[in-house]
C-alpha cells in the first residue's frame, strides 16, 4: 500500500502551524495553558519571535501522545505535553509551564541535572531505565521510577539550545514486581512441615528482604490470656521501644492496638510520639510515619497480628493494603500449618513413649520372673539329689515341676533376649570356633529325642577352612530352636543338619521332611508371637517366639536366615554366617575361644521336646490314686473302712441332737471334716454358702425335710451336683425309691451299722469326686476369671458360662444352653452387617481348632458391645465329643477409641494432602464413605444455590430425588454438628466457607447409627469444617493471583470471521492492561471492544478485568458504542486507576458489514480493503475514559466491504521509540494487506510477527481482526432434497462476498456437484448422514471444502459417465480441485481465484 492510496482522512492531521496561538493548537488543553504563559518574562520572549526550530519542537511535543517534556534556552525553560502532565507532572501543572527546568524539578535536580548537562554539552542523548526519582507531584515526595531519554534540541543554526525528554513511568511495574517477589518468596517455603519457630524465622527472612515496602515488621502472637508476645521482627533492632516483648491483653494505651487486632480488625497507626522515635529508615532517607496493624486471621480468633511499617514514599493504596494483607495471610497460614504439624508430632511422640513403656514392662516383668524361678530351680535340684532313692511317684512329680520350671525359664529368657536386642543391650562375645565341631556337638544333644521319635537324624558337618566367630549361647539358642522346631513338626521321615562353606560364608541348613509351611504363612514365619494355626505337630504348645528370636540372633551375627518349604513335603532353614570379624562390633570380638564344656542351655529344650513324644509305658509309674490309708486316731476308734485321701467335708443335717453328734463323731474320727445343722433350711443355706463334698441328711426334719432339700439342691445349678445321702427310719422299697427319685445319691435306713454308713459315705464321696472333682475345680477356676468364659458343644450351643460372662453380656446361666444363633448376636434385620460379622466369626469357631476375633455383640439390655474372643478346641473327657472353649474381653471402649483415632488420622491425612477446597471436600467424603462403608456420601453446599459434591458418579443437585433434596435442605435448619439419622442413613450440618454444608451418608439401612457413631460423625464433621476453612484460605490466595491473570484472556469462543491475539510485554509477567473482547448481542450483531488500561501489573489487570466486564454488560444492555463509552466513563470514575483507559468500542452487523463505533482516545482501527487501500476509522473520537465523565461522546459509522479486513489493536502494536505513531499505523495496514490470500487466523499470526520489533514487544499488545463476511459453514443431511436449500444459502453468502456473477455460478455448480457426489456415492447406504460445506473468502480467492462420511468411486473409463461428468465439471469450474478419500469420509477441497 502506497501512502498516496490513502483516502483524504488516511493520515493523522498535520499539526497546525503559523504564528502566535496556532503554535499551541495541536493540543487544546495544554496548548491553552501554554498560550496563557507570559512568555515575555522568560528568556524565550514572545512566541511570535521564536525561531522555527523551537516552533517545530513545540508542535512535535504537543502532538505526541507519548509522555514528553522539553527545555529550551539559557534557563532551560520548561514545556510539556498532555501525556506528561497526566503521568508525571501532577499538581505542578500548569505552574511549571515556562519556568526554568531546574525550578520545576528542584527536588530531583541532583539526579537529572548532570544528565541534562551532558546532553547540552556533548549533544549526545542519554538513556535511563527505571530510574528511582522522588517526585513531589502529589504534595509529598513519592517513590517513582521512570525510563527516559534526554535528546538534544538544536536551533536553526544547529547549536544545542535545549533538550527533549521522552519518558515513560515504570512505578507501578517496579513496585508491583517487588511486592510480587515478596509474596512469591513467602509462598516458596520448601518444607511443608516445620515448627512454628522455623516458620516465623523463614517469614522474617523473606520480609527482611523487602524493607522498601516493609521498612520494619513485627509479628505478635496471642497467648491464652489475650496478651501478645513478640514472635518475630524485621528491620527493627532488638529492644527498640516500638517492639516490646509482650503486650498486655485488651490494652488500648499500649504501643500497638492489641484489642482491635484480637477482634480481627485492621488499624492504621501514626508513628509519632515516644515509642516511635529513632525508628530506622530502612532503605529510605526518612523513617516511616505510618504502620498498618493487620490480624493474623484463622478460623476463630486471630493467631496474632502483623505490624507492617509503611513506605512513606508511597500512598497507602488499595493494592498496598492488599499486599500487606496477603503477607499477613501467608504468615497466618504458615502458623496454622506449623501448629497442626506440631500436634501431629506430639501424637507420634506419645505413641513412641507408649512403645518404650511396653518394652520396659516386658523387660521388668521378665526379670521379676527370673528371681522366683531361680528360687524354684535351685532347691528343686537339691531336692532331686536328696530324693534319689525315694518313692518313684515323688520323683515323678518333682520331674514335672522341674520340666515346667525349665520351660518357663526358657520362655522368660527368650523374652529377655528380645528386650535386650530391642534396647541394644544384648551382651555378646563373638569367639572364633570350629563351627563344625560346635554344631555337631549341639546337634548330638537332640539325637536321643529324634531316636525316640523314630526319625532319622543325620548330621553332616565336615570341618570348615576357617573358624567362624559366634556367641556360643546365642548359637545354642539358634540351633536348639531350629532342631526342636524340626522335631515338633516332623511326624515321620528325617531331619538333616548340614554345614558347608560357600564363598565367604558358612552355611548351615536344617532340613526336615515335616508338615511344611503353607505358602500364605511364609511371610509371617519369623514374626514374633506369630503361630501357624492348625499345623499338624507333636504338640500344640508354643509361644511363637522361637523363630523370631533365631532371626534376631542371626542378625546380630551379621548373618541371614531364609526358609524354603513345601506343604506336606518338608521345610529347610538356611543360616548364613560370614567368616571373619569385619561384620561384628569390634568390642565384642574375643581373640580366642574360651574354654567351655558342652552345651549349657540344652536341658530346657531337650526336656520340653521329650515331653512331646509318647511315654514309654514301662518307665512310667502307675498314675497316682486316692487309694491311701487315712491314719485314724490310733487305737481310739475301731478301724473302719478307710476314709478319703484328702479330708472331705460332710454336712450332717438331723434334728435329733444325739443322732447328729453320733454321725459327726463317727465321720470325724474317720478323717472327715464335719459340719452339723439341725434342719433342711439351715442345711440349704450352709450348702449354698459353701458346698460340701457330701450331705448326710435325715428325711424327717422340721421346716424343710430331706426330700425337699434334695429337690432344692437339684434345682439350683450351683448345688445340683452335691451328693446327698438320705437317712430314714422308714424302711421299705417305696421309701427308698421315693428318695432316689427326688435325686438323692444313696439311701440308708435306720438303724444302720457305723461301718455300713462309712462305706456308703465313702462310696458316695468317691463317686462324686470322680464325677465332679475336675468339674468343681474348673468351675472355681473359671468363675474366678475376669474374662468371660464359655463352652460350646459341637453344634455351637453355649452349654456353660462363668459369672464374668453374665456380667459382660447380661445373659445368665439360668437360660443355658444358648443355641446358635445366640441371643447376643446383633439383630439381623436392624444391623445385617454386624450380624454377618458375628456369623462369620461363629463359623470360624466351629471349623477351626483355635482362633480369635473381635466382633460386635448386643448386651441383654440391647446396648452394643465389642468383644475380643479367643477360642480353642477341646475334647469332652466324658463323651469324647468335640467342644469349643473360649474366653472373651469387653473391648468396647478400646474399639471406639481406636476407631475415632484412626478416623481422625485418616481424615487429617486426606485434608492435608488436598490441593484445593473441592479436593479437600471430596477426599473427606471418601474417608467417611470408607469408614461407614456407606453406599454414597453426599454434600450439598448452600451458597447462592445448592452445589452438590459426592462420592461415586458426579451428580447435580437437580438430579437428586425430590425427597433427598428436601432431606438435605431440612438439615440446614438443624444446629451445627448435630447428627440426624433417618431410615437409610445419617446426616449432619457443618460450616463450609461458601455456605452451610449439609452432609448425608447413604448407609443403605444396613446398620443402625449408634450413639458412638453419632459422636464420631460430629467429631469428624467439626474436624472437616476446620480443614475446609484452611483449604479455602489457601484457595483464595491462589485464586486472587490466577483470577487476575485469567482476566486478560479474551472471550472463550469467538464469533466466526474473527481472530485475536494477546502478547504480554515481558514473558514472565503475564499481567497487563490491554484487552480485547467480542460479545454477540441479542439482535445478532457483534460488539467489539479493544482497550488499554494505564499501567501494568496486578493493579492494571484488576482495572482491566472490571472495565471489560462492565463494557460487556453495557453493550448487552444498549448496543450503542457511544452510549456504552459514556456509561463506562461514569463507571471508570469510580474505579481507582481506570481513568485514562483508552477504548475502541464498535458494533458490527455481520450480514452487511456495517460498523458503528466510538473511540475513547484509542488508536484508530484500520480497514484493509480488497482494492489495496487501507482506511482509518478515526471519526467518533473523544477523550480517554473518565477524563470528562459528563461529556457527550460522538459515534461514527462505516462499512467493512466484502473481503475487506478490519484491524483493531492497542498502541503496543504500532508505537515505537523515536518514530511517529502514524508510521506504525501505516505499517500495520500494510501488514494486513500482505495477508490477502491467507485465512484470518493465520493473518493474525502474520501481523503479530511482522510488526514485532527486534527483541519482542516492549509493551503488551492486544489485536483483533475481522474479515467480512465470516466464513460459510453448513451441515446438511445427505439427501438430494436438501440441495436446493444448500444452493440458496451458499448463493446469499456469495452475494455478501460480492463475487462476479460468473464466479458465483462456477462456485455453485462445483459445490453442487461435490454435494451430489457425496449424496450419490458417499451415502447410498447410509442416507441421513451429514455433509458439511465450508467456504471462506480471501481477498482474491474463494476456498471451498465439502466433506462427507462416505467413500467415492473413481470415474470409470468407458462406463456410464455419470459422476465422472460431475468431477469433470468441478475441475473445469475451479482452479484447483483436490479429492481426498479417507477412512472416515471423503473431502473435496476447491479453490478459485476471483476475477477482478
Amino acid at each position: 500500500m502506497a501512502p498516496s492510496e490513502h483516502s483524504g482522512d488516511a493520515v493523522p492531521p498535520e499539526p497546525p502551524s503559523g504564528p502566535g496561538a496556532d503554535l499551541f493548537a495541536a493540543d487544546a488543553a495544554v496548548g491553552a495553558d501554554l498560550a496563557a504563559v507570559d512568555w515575555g518574562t522568560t528568556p524565550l520572549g514572545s512566541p511570535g519571535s521564536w525561531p522555527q526550530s523551537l516552533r517545530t519542537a513545540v508542535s512535535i511535543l504537543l502532538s505526541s501522545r507519548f509522555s514528553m517534556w522539553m527545555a529550551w534556552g539559557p534557563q532551560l525553560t520548561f514545556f510539556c505535553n498532555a501525556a506528561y502532565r497526566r503521568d508525571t507532572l501532577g499538581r505542578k501543572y500548569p505552574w511549571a509551564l515556562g519556568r526554568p527546568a531546574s525550578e520545576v524539578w528542584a527536588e530531583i535536580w541532583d539526579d537529572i541535572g548532570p544528565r541534562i548537562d551532558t546532553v547540552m554539552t556533548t549533544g549526545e542523548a542519554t538513556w535511563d531505565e527505571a530510574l528511582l526519582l522522588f517526585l513531589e507531584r502529589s504534595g509529598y515526595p513519592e517513590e517513582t521510577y521512570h525510563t527516559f531519554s534526554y535528546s538534544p534540541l538544536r536551533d536553526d543554526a544547529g547549536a544545542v539550545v535545549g533538550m527533549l525528554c521522552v519518558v515513560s513511568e515504570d512505578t507501578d511495574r517496579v513496585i508491583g514486581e517487588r511486592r510480587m517477589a515478596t509474596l512469591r518468596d513467602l509462598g516458596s517455603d520448601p518444607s511443608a512441615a516445620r515448627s512454628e519457630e522455623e516458620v516465623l524465622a523463614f517469614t522474617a527472612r523473606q520480609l527482611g528482604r523487602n524493607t522498601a515496602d516493609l521498612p520494619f515488621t513485627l509479628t505478635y502472637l496471642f497467648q491464652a490470656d489475650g496478651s501478645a508476645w513478640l514472635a518475630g521482627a524485621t528491620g527493627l533492632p532488638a529492644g527498640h521501644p516500638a517492639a516490646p516483648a509482650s503486650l498486655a491483653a485488651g490494652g488500648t494505651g499500649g504501643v500497638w492496638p492489641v484489642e482491635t487486632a484480637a477482634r480481627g480488625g485492621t488499624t492504621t497507626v501514626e508513628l509519632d510520639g515516644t515509642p516511635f522515635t529513632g525508628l530506622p529508615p530502612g532503605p529510605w532517607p526518612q523513617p516511616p510515619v505510618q504502620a498498618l496493624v493487620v490480624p493474623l486471621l484463622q478460623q476463630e480468633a486471630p493467631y496474632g497480628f502483623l505490624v507492617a511499617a509503611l513506605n512513606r514514599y508511597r500512598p497507602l493504596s488499595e493494592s498496598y493494603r492488599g499486599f500487606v494483607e496477603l503477607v499477613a495471610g501467608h504468615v497466618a497460614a504458615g502458623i496454622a500449618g506449623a501448629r497442626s504439624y506440631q500436634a501431629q508430632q506430639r501424637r507420634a511422640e506419645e505413641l513412641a513413649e507408649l512403645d518404650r513403656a511396653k518394652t520396659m514392662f516386658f523387660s521388668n516383668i521378665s526379670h521379676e520372673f527370673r528371681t522366683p524361678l531361680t528360687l524354684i530351680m535351685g532347691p528343686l535340684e537339691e531336692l532331686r539329689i536328696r530324693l534319689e532313692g525315694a518313692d518313684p511317684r515323688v520323683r515323678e512329680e518333682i520331674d514335672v515341676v522341674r520340666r515346667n520350671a525349665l520351660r518357663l525359664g526358657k520362655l522368660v529368657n527368650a523374652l529377655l533376649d528380645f528386650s535386650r536386642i530391642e534396647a541394644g543391650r544384648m551382651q555378646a562375645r563373638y569367639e572364633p570356633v570350629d563351627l563344625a565341631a560346635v554344631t555337631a556337638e549341639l546337634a548330638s544333644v537332640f539325637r536321643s529325642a529324634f531316636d525316640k521319635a523314630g526319625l532319622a537324624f543325620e548330621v553332616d558337618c565336615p570341618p570348615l577352612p576357617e573358624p567362624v566367630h559366634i556367641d556360643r549361647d546365642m548359637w545354642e539358642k539358634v540351633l536348639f530352636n531350629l532342631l526342636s522346631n524340626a522335631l515338633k513338626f516332623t511326624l515321620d521321615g528325617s531331619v538333616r543338619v548340614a554345614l558347608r562353606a560357600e564363598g565367604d560364608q558358612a552355611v548351615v541348613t536344617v532340613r526336615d521332611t515335616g508338615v511344611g509351611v503353607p505358602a500364605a504363612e511364609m511371610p509371617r514365619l519369623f514374626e514374633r508371637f506369630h503361630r501357624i494355626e492348625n499345623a499338624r505337630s507333636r504338640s500344640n504348645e508354643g509361644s511363637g517366639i522361637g523363630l523370631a528370636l533365631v532371626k534376631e540372633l542371626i542378625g546380630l551375627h551379621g548373618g541371614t536366615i531364609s526358609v524354603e518349604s513345601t506343604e506336606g513335603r518338608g521345610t529347610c532353614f538356611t543360616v548364613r554366617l560370614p567368616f571373619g570379624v569385619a561384620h561384628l562390633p569390634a568390642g565384642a570380638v574375643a581373640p580366642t575361644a574360651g574354654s567351655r564344656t558342652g552345651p549349657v542351655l540344652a536341658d530346657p529344650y531337650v526336656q520340653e521336646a521329650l515331653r512331646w513324644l509318647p511315654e514309654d509305658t514301662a518307665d512310667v509309674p502307675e498314675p497316682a490314686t486316692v487309694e491311701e490309708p487315712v491314719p485314724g486316731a490310733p487305737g481310739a476308734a475301731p478301724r473302719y473302712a478307710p476314709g478319703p485321701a484328702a479330708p472331705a467335708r460332710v454336712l450332717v443335717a438331723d434334728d435329733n441332737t444325739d443322732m447328729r453328734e453320733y454321725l459327726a463323731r463317727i465321720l470325724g474320727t474317720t478323717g472327715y471334716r464335719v459340719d452339723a445343722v439341725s434342719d433342711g433350711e439351715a442345711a440349704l443355706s450352709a450348702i449354698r454358702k459353701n458346698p460340701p463334698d457330701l450331705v448326710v441328711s435325715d428325711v424327717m426334719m422340721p421346716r424343710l425335710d430331706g426330700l425337699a432339700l434334695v429337690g432344692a439342691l437339684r434345682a439350683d445349678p450351683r448345688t445340683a451336683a452335691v451328693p446327698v445321702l438320705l437317712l430314714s427310719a422308714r424302711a421299705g422299697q417305696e421309701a427308698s425309691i421315693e428318695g432316689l427319685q427326688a435325686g438323692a445319691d444313696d439311701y440308708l435306713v435306720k438303724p444302720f451299722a457305723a461301718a455300713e454308713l462309712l462305706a456308703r459315705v465313702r462310696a458316695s464321696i468317691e463317686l462324686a469326686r470322680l464325677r465332679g472333682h475336675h468339674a468343681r475345680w474348673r468351675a472355681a477356676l473359671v468363675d474366678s476369671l475376669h474374662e468371660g468364659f464359655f463352652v460350646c458343644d459341637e453344634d455351637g450351643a453355649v452349654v456353660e458360662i462363668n459369672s464374668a460372662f453374665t456380667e459382660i453380656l447380661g445373659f445368665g446361666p439360668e437360660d443355658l444352653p444358648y443355641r446358635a444363633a445366640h441371643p447376643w448376636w446383633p439383630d439381623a434385620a436392624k444391623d445385617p452387617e454386624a450380624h454377618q460379622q458375628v456369623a462369620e466369626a461363629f463359623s470360624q469357631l466351629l471349623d477351626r481348632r483355635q482362633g480369635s476375633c473381635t466382633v460386635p455383640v448386643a448386651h441383654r439390655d440391647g446396648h452394643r458391645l465389642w468383644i475380643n474372643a479367643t477360642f480353642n478346641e477341646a475334647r469332652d473327657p466324658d463323651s469324647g465329643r468335640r467342644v469349643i472353649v473360649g474366653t472373651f474381653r469387653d473391648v468396647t471402649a478400646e474399639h471406639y477409641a481406636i476407631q475415632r483415632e484412626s478416623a481422625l488420622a485418616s481424615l487429617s491425612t486426606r485434608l492435608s494432602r488436598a490441593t484445593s477446597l473441592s479436593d479437600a471436600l471430596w477426599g473427606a467424603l471418601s474417608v467417611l464413605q470408607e469408614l461407614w462403608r456407606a453406599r454414597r456420601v453426599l454434600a450439598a453446599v448452600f451458597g447462592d444455590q445448592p452445589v452438590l459434591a459426592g462420592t461415586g458418579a458426579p451428580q447435580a443437585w437437580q438430579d437428586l430425588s425430590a425427597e433427598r433434596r428436601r432431606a438435605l435442605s431440612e438439615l440446614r435448619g438443624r444446629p451445627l454438628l448435630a447428627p440426624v439419622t433417618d431410615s437409610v442413613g445419617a446426616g449432619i450440618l457443618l460450616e463450609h466457607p461458601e455456605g452451610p454444608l449439609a452432609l448425608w451418608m447413604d448407609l443403605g439401612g444396613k446398620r443402625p447409627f449408634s450413639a458412638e457413631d453419632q459422636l464420631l460423625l460430629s467429631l469428624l464433621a467439626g474436624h472437616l469444617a476446620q480443614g475446609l476453612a484452611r483449604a479455602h484460605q489457601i484457595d483464595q490466595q491462589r485464586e486472587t493471583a490466577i483470577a487476575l491473570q485469567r482476566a486478560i484472556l479474551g472471550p472463550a469462543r469467538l464469533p466466526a470471521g474473527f481472530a485475536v491475539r494477546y502478547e504480554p510485554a515481558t514473558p514472565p509477567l503475564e499481567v497487563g492492561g490491554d484487552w480485547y473482547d467480542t460479545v454477540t448481542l441479542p439482535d445478532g450483531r457483534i460488539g467489539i471492544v479493544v482497550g488499554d488500561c494505564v499501567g501494568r501489573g496486578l493493579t492494571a489487570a484488576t482495572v482491566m478485568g472490571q472495565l471489560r466486564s462492565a463494557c460487556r454488560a453495557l453493550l448487552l444492555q444498549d448496543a450503542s458504542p457511544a452510549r456504552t463509552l459514556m456509561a463506562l466513563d461514569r463507571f471508570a470514575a469510580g474505579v481507582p486507576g481506570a481513568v485514562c483507559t483508552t477504548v475502541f468500542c464498535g458494533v458490527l452487523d455481520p450480514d452487511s458489514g456495517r460498523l458503528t463505533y466510538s473511540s475513547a482516545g484509542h488508536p484508530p482501527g484500520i480497514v484493509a480493503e480488497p482494492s489495496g487501500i487501507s482506511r482509518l476509522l478515526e471519526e467518533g473520537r473523544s477523550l480517554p475514559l473518565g477524563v470528562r465523565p459528563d461529556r457527550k461522546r460522538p459515534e461514527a459509522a462505516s462499512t467493512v466491504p466484502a473481503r475487506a479486513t478490519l484491524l483493531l489493536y492497542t498502541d503496543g502494536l504500532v508505537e515505537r521509540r523515536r518514530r511517529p505513531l502514524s508510521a506504525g499505523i501505516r505499517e500495520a495496514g500494510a501488514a494486513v494487506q500482505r495477508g490477502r490470500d491467507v485465512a484470518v487466523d493465520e493473518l493474525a499470526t502474520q501481523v503479530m510477527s511482522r510488526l514485532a520489533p527486534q527483541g519482542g514487544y516492549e509493551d503488551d499488545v492486544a489485536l483483533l481482526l475481522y474479515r467480512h463476511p465470516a466464513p460459510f459453514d453448513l451441515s446438511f443431511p445427505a439427501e438430494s432434497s436438501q440441495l436446493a436449500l444448500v444452493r440458496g444459502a451458499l448463493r446469499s453468502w456469495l452475494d455478501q462476498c460480492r463475487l462476479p456473477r460468473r464466479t458465483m455460478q462456477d462456485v455453485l455448480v462445483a459445490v453442487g456437484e461435490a454435494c451430489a457426489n457425496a449424496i450419490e456415492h458417499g451415502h447410498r447406504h447410509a442416507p441421513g448422514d451429514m455433509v458439511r460445506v465450508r467456504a471462506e473468502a480471501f481477498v482474491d480467492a474463494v476456498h471451498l471444502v465439502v466433506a462427507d462420511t462416505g467413500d467415492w468411486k473413481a470415474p470409470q473409463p468407458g462406463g456410464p459417465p455419470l459422476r465422472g461428468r460431475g468431477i469433470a465439471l468441478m475441475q473445469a469450474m475451479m482452479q484447483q480441485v483436490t479429492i481426498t478419500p479417507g477412512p472416515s469420509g471423503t473431502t473435496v477441497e476447491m479453490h478459485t481465484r476471483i476475477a477482478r
Partner: protein
Amino acid sequence: MTTPLTLTPGRRPDGTALLTVSGEIDMSNSDAFAEALAKALDATAEPLVLDLSAVEYLDSAGLTVLFNHADRIELIAAPLLIPVLTVSGLSEITRVQGTDGPAAG
C-alpha cells in the same frame, strides 16, 4: 422436498415441439425432468426444442438426461448455463442457441 421445476410443453410458431423449463435441475428432480422430456419426445417424431432460458442451475444429473436425447433436441439457454453445456461437451453434439440475457462472467 425436491427442487422446484416447472415443465410446460407447447409448440413453436413453426410447429416444432417445444418444452419450456423453468427452475433448477439437480439430482433430486432429474428423474421427473427425464420423464417429462421422454414424454414430450414420444409425442413427436420431429426434433424437440428445449427452452432452458429460465433454468438457473443445471447439474451433471440434468446433463445426463440431455445427453441421452442429444440427437433429438435443440437447446435454448441463458448465458449462465453456457459454460456447463460447453464444458460437458454437450454443445458439440447438440445445437445450443443462446438468449439475450446478460453475458456470463
